[in-house]
């Protein structure tokens, strides 16, 4: 089963939840789709790393063939081409690799070349296979990296955890697209609730079965929990706000591997999540 972990707001504990759930599973694949700021590998410290470059196709012009008709410039909806001082210029960073310019050039002056935008690393840490997408600095979109990773999972493991980027835009949509279930991690703040509401709308729009893990829980009223009750969203579990857990996590240690108490906590959470996903597959195959 593929389980996506998302949050809207950053820093609510997506990586904490996905890394620890993967660690307590018998065997699991952990995929870091937060390609702009991947952190899961810092916790797992994977070994036997295989690395593969990810590239996109961008156009380049054969200057001898280009007659300056500007058909490509007019066609490009992303304004990635300009014809200035008798020369065709390509703005790589805004090109969406749609291929239109190359397809429609009447002089066949355009062809495509590969441009590396990042990489995917695969490694192992105990029971977990770790796949990390990494966007190169200065590149605009990590979507092609996420697409490549999710289209090429051939691991036959019971659990696949997809650690999503923050927010609710294109990279998040791509990350949850094929997920069987979405875990939303929320923190008990006004900001947390507002962003939880946004991803709640997103998972509802994509018709994904979902539940919430409440992180950083303190005594007293929890605005995120209140939101879940009002909306009838299943609360899968609560993670307490504890400095012990905070320190382990800030030192990039996997709490479930370091401390029995946290191992038990994440193991129970995994059981609850498993039951939920199975339940969803029965009623909604």
């Amino acid at each position, binding site marked *: 089963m593929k389980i996506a972990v998302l949050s809207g707001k950053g820093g609510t504990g997506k990586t904490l939840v996905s890394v620890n759930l993967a660690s307590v599973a018998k065997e699991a694949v952990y995929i870091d789709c*937060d390609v702009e700021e991947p952190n899961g590998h810092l916790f797992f410290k994977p070994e036997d790393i295989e690395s593969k470059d990810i590239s996109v196709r961008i156009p380049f012009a054969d200057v001898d063939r280009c007659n300056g008709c500007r058909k490509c410039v007019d066609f490009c909806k992303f304004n990635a081409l300009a014809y200035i001082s008798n020369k065709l210029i390509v703005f790589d960073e805004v090109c969406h690799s749609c291929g239109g310019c190359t397809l429609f050039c009447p002089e066949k002056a355009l062809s495509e070349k590969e441009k590396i935008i990042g990489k995917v690393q695969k490694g192992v840490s105990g029971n977990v296979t770790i796949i990390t997408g990494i966007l190169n*600095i200065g590149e605009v979109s990590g979507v092609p990296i996420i697409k490549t990773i999710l289209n090429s999972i051939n691991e036959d493991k019971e659990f696949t955890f997809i650690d999503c980027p923050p927010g609710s835009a294109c990279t998040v949509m791509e990350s949850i697209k094929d997920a069987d279930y979405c875990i939303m991690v929320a923190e008990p703040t006004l900001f947390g609730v*507002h962003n939880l509401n946004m991803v709640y709308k997103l998972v509802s729009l994509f018709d994904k079965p979902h539940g919430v893990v409440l992180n950083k829980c303190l005594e007293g009223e929890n605005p995120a929990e209140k939101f879940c009750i009002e909306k009838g969203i299943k609360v899968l579990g609560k993670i307490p706000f504890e400095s012990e857990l905070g*320190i382990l996590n800030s030192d990039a240690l996997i709490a479930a591997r370091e401390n029995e108490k946290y191992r038990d906590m994440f193991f129970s959470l995994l059981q609850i999540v498993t039951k939920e996903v199975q339940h969803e597959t029965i009623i909604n195959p």
Partner: protein
Amino acid sequence: MKQLLILSGKGGTGKTTIASAFIKLSDAKAYADCDVDAPNLHLVMHQPSEPEMTDYYGLPKAEINPDSCVKCDLCRQNCRFDAINAGAEYKVDYYACEGCGVCEAVCPAGAVFLKPAVAGELMLHAGDKVFSTAELTMGSGTSGKLVAEVKKQMKAAAQDIDLAIIDGSPGIGCPVIASLSGADMVLIVAEPSISGISDMERIIKTAEKFQTKVAVCINKYDTNIENTEKIRSFCQKYELPFAGVIPFDPDAIKAINNAQSIIDIDCAAGRAAKEVFNTTIKILNA
């Protein structure tokens, strides 16, 4: 107008908490929230009046008219975004479509057309102080362009102003790069964790790539003193101006949950934020 942009790389380090404190401390006449897919600044910056709302149109989306479609499959074969599904009727996956127009151009039957699509909502409070913000429509992808619009409407409404404070988004991709354009300085809000340090290094490299001046402050510095020291020495090593530290403070969470800024109440985080603010302004004007 000088633009101070608050970024962090990692999410949840305290960008909005610090941005709202800085806006109040500087009595900024212009400010904006560029985190369009998870905006929060408006929750702590109460506005005296309703905003002026404008629909934001991203790129159009393709649609196929089933009556004229001849099922030649050319649109599906040429779509790089896997946005066309064949079946009894050819259909466009609205969320996968990026609006490039290739399908429309290859269709021999004129069955494909591009339709304008609302991708977000821009909001502008333009009174004595200008506040520009937006919210991306769920299922829309073009957050970078919306960020550019947020900044554009702020600048248009606030011309003769010394300082604008801009709350950014996490990450290093399109919305962040769009927010960097025109910024005079970036204040990075770092967090003393191994993840936070890794993310901070990536956002600093991104800002440098776009030749924007950088300063660093550390929020919740006392949650891991060892990592705080690592950040300080990183800044020393690369000669990055250091703007100070803010402690973890449960009162700060209380303030935010009451829809207040940390400088609206007397608390340790608020006092520290004042010092960080003064240092940041000195660095900005240096």
